[in-house]
């Protein structure tokens, strides 16, 4: 009970409900033209159901309490029913409203907005179909029992049922709209207001014409009604239905309608009128619900599309789409920002859009290969993956990893291509730096091994030399002593000879050193070794402004070599050639590398320069012979040792008109095997 008290509605609402109920009864009375039936459409039913649907069940007793006096007052005013019969009828009405509201609330989501087809159907079937059964049964029984109105139960029941149903179908939606949007702002734009007004006028005109008999039948009202339902959904349908009911009522009351007539046909027409209104209301409500559902779906779709697009623009990846034929159809915002222009709009006469786009944004060196790969993918449907350079808005080309996958429909046909571009510039740079560092390291190792070798040779020669000097001084002292110590002088002289011999042994020891490393040899292609050395020395050569021409016979037979030693020989010969170029101030700064097959089983490699040439082509191979300042004179001697340890020959010849050619031969593996 406390709950019921605490849920009491505002007095104003109750008063308005009372007034509306009485007005509804008056409207019903005005339409009750069939003699003896007293009622046709029953608007209070709709009002009652809508009120209860929207209010809490605990407040229902209050509405029922207020509805009772309103109906009894109306009955006393218009129908003059006896009090018991009136009470019984009201009980039926109240029961109908409560049952309808309860069923609808149970079935639909709260608050009830009748926004989808399911809710509308539930409302129509439960509130407008089943609930009136109660009131029709109770009301018809009351009428039959009353006896005064001379109506049989079975004659009154259908009219009662259809009257209530129509009342609920027409009034309840409107009531729901009004109750729910009482405080909400009208969200209609000016254009929509104009449309609403035009629609209202058309509806009025059509209704007036059709109901006054100028148009052949009343259903001509359907198009404007459905238009309202489609465009203005539930609200449009509700308002239009009320308008329609009002027009019908006015015409019926004024007798201008096609419905009035003799008693039996009037009864028939009454039913027709009610059916007409009921069918109109049903159609309008269903169409409104469908329209609402459609709009909702559209909104949801747009929202999800917007979210998807935002996501696509937000992810740190450049995304693009191609049509099945390869026409660019979409670039995400990030990609457009990257280009600094919307490349999708690029058009060049005589070129496909794809080709024009590629020409505009891809590095010229990569464009052809990219087109080829992309077209291949478009033809075959294979995934596309390629690395290329893409021009940024500031004109800088950055390395991109481009990938694309086709999207296929259910039949496996390609519908569209989705692609993305990943910026891999930094990665490429890092790789480049790494490779450069590796090259540098390799070069340093080679340079170090030769200079280390030189240092160790220097030490090897210096040590006996120092001993010789010191011993020579001792020898002189023994000889110049008084008396000369010939015995000791002889010993020292022998030591001097011994140490001098050991110094001259150094070179033969170097030879021995190189021939000892024979086990490190593996078959290799000299062309490859030469290319490798050129790569290693590329920086140095570029720095010294020297151009290298190569004439390398492809697929030379393999030779068994110590790769590192062979690299050292080549580095040494190339450096000598470059140094030789420095001795002449003019002429082309070019050296020429040749690797050819000399006979069946010999490979011949030449390093040719256009320097000043050498005066003594044989002496330069002697240890410690050097023409360079600061040179050790060991480079060519070591080179010759290495080549000879490979069973080859190294020599130098003068070029005409100038320069020197250093050439060496190496046996091929075939000869080794023979």
């Amino acid at each position: 009970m406390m709950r019921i008290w605490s849920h009491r509605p505002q007095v104003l609402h109750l008063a308005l409900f009372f007034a509306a109920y009485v007005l509804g009864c008056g409207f019903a009375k005005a339409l009750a033209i069939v003699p003896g039936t007293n009622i046709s459409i029953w608007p209070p039913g709709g009002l009652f159901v809508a009120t209860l649907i929207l209010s809490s069940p605990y407040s229902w007793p209050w509405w029922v309490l207020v509805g009772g006096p309103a109906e009894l007052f109306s009955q006393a005013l218009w129908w003059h029913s006896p009090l018991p019969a009136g009470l019984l009828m009201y009980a039926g009405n109240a029961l109908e409203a409560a049952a309808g509201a309860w069923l609808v609330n149970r079935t639909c989501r709260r608050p009830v907005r009748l926004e989808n087809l399911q809710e509308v159907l539930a409302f129509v079937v439960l509130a407008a179909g089943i609930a009136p059964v109660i009131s029709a049964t109770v009301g018809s029984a009351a009428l039959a029992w009353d006896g005064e109105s001379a109506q049989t139960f079975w004659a009154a029941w259908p009219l009662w049922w259809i009257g209530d149903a129509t009342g609920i179908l027409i009034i309840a939606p409107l009531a729901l709209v009004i109750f729910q949007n009482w405080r909400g702002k009208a969200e209609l734009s000016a254009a929509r207001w104009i449309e609403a007004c035009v629609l209202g006028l058309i509806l009025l005109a059509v209704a007036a014409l059709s109901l006054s008999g100028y148009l052949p039948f009343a259903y001509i009202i359907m198009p404007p009604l459905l238009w309202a339902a489609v465009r203005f959904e539930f609200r449009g349908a509700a308002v239009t239905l009320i308008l329609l009911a009002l027009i019908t009522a006015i015409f019926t009351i004024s007798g201008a309608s096609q419905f009035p007539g003799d008693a039996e046909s009037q009864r028939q027409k009454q039913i027709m009128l009610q059916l007409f209104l009921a069918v109109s209301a049903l159609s309008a409500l269903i169409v409104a619900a469908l329209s609402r559902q459609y709009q909702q779906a559209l909104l949801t779709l747009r929202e999800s599309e917007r979210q998807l697009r935002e996501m696509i623009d937000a992810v740190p990846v450049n995304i693009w789409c191609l049509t099945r034929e390869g026409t660019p159809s979409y670039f995400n915002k990030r990609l457009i920002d990257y280009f600094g222009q919307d490349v999708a709009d690029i058009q060049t006469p005589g070129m496909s859009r794809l080709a024009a786009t590629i020409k505009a944004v891809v590095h010229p060196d990569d464009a052809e290969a990219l087109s080829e790969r992309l077209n291949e993918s478009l033809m075959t449907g294979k995934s596309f993956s390629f690395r290329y350079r893409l021009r940024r808005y500031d004109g800088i080309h950055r390395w991109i990893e481009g990938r694309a996958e086709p999207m296929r429909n259910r039949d496996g046909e390609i519908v569209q291509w989705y692609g993305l571009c990943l910026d891999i510039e930094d990665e490429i740079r890092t790789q480049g730096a790494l490779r450069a560092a590796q090259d540098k390291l390799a070069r340093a190792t080679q340079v170090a091994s030769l200079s280390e070798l030189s240092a160790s040779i220097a030490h090897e020669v210096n040590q006996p030399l120092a001993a010789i000097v010191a011993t020579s001084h001792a020898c002189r002292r023994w000889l110049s002593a008084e008396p000369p110590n010939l015995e000791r002088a002889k010993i020292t002289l022998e030591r001097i000879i011994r140490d001098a011999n050991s110094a001259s042994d150094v070179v033969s020891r170097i030879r021995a050193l190189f021939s000892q490393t024979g086990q490190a040899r593996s078959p290799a292609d000299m062309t490859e070794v030469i290319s490798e050395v050129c790569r290693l020395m590329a920086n140095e050569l570029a720095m010294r402004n020297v151009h290298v021409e190569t004439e390398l016979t492809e697929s030379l037979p393999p030779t068994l070599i110590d790769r590192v030693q062979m690299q050292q020989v080549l580095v040494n010969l190339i450096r000598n050639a470059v140094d030789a170029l420095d001795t002449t101030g003019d002429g082309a700064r070019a050296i020429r590398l040749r690797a050819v097959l000399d006979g069946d089983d010999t490979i011949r490699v030449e390093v040719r320069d256009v320097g000043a040439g050498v005066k003594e082509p044989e002496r330069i191979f002697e240890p410690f012979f050097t023409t360079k300042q600061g040179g050790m004179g060991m480079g060519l001697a070591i080179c010759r040792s290495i080549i000879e340890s490979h069973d080859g020959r190294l020599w130098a010849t003068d070029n005409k008109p100038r320069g020197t050619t250093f050439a060496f031969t190496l046996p091929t593996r075939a000869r080794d095997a023979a």
Partner: protein
Amino acid sequence: MKAEDFIVFVVDDDPRMREALSELLESVGWRAIAFGSAGEYLSHQRPNLAACLILDVELPDINGLDVQKQIAHGDHPPIVFLTGHGDIPSSVRAIKHGAVDFLTKPFTEEALLNAIRSAVERDWLARRERAELSIRRQRLASLTPREREVLPLVVSGLLNKQAAAELGISEVTLQIHRRKIMQKMEADSLADLVRIAEKLEIPITHSRRAGST
């Protein structure tokens, strides 16, 4: 300088160099002992003579410069370095750490002999210094505890009166102690005593100026 006066140690891993150096030094009339490694030299019982160490930089067991660092705090003879390929940074480092010379092989006889001479001379002076110091230490040790208290006060320049007051003894007694100290330390004058005290690192603890300690 006589042959018995000093000895030359040679450390070189190359036997030819060891032989040549020994031969040369012998021909000059000097005594030389040669070692193949730093370890051999260090484990050798050195005679109590002025000496010089000829050290090859490139040794098999350890770098010559590191040997120099290791023996810096022992009573080792001055070092003359020999190297196959001398570079400026290592020669600077060697000289800075007290090496007499840094010779690049092959070197002239003159350069080597001069370097050895100056090294030996330096060692001889150092040895004399060390010997004097040890005698003085012995003399210092012969002082009585009271005399050892008086010595710092006297060499600090305090008047007899002040020193006596400091120790709470009469001026006459202090004068007796002072005379004893002069005798025992074999100092000719107060100035001589002060010099000796300085070498023995006796701290100057007092000042004649009144008010400060």
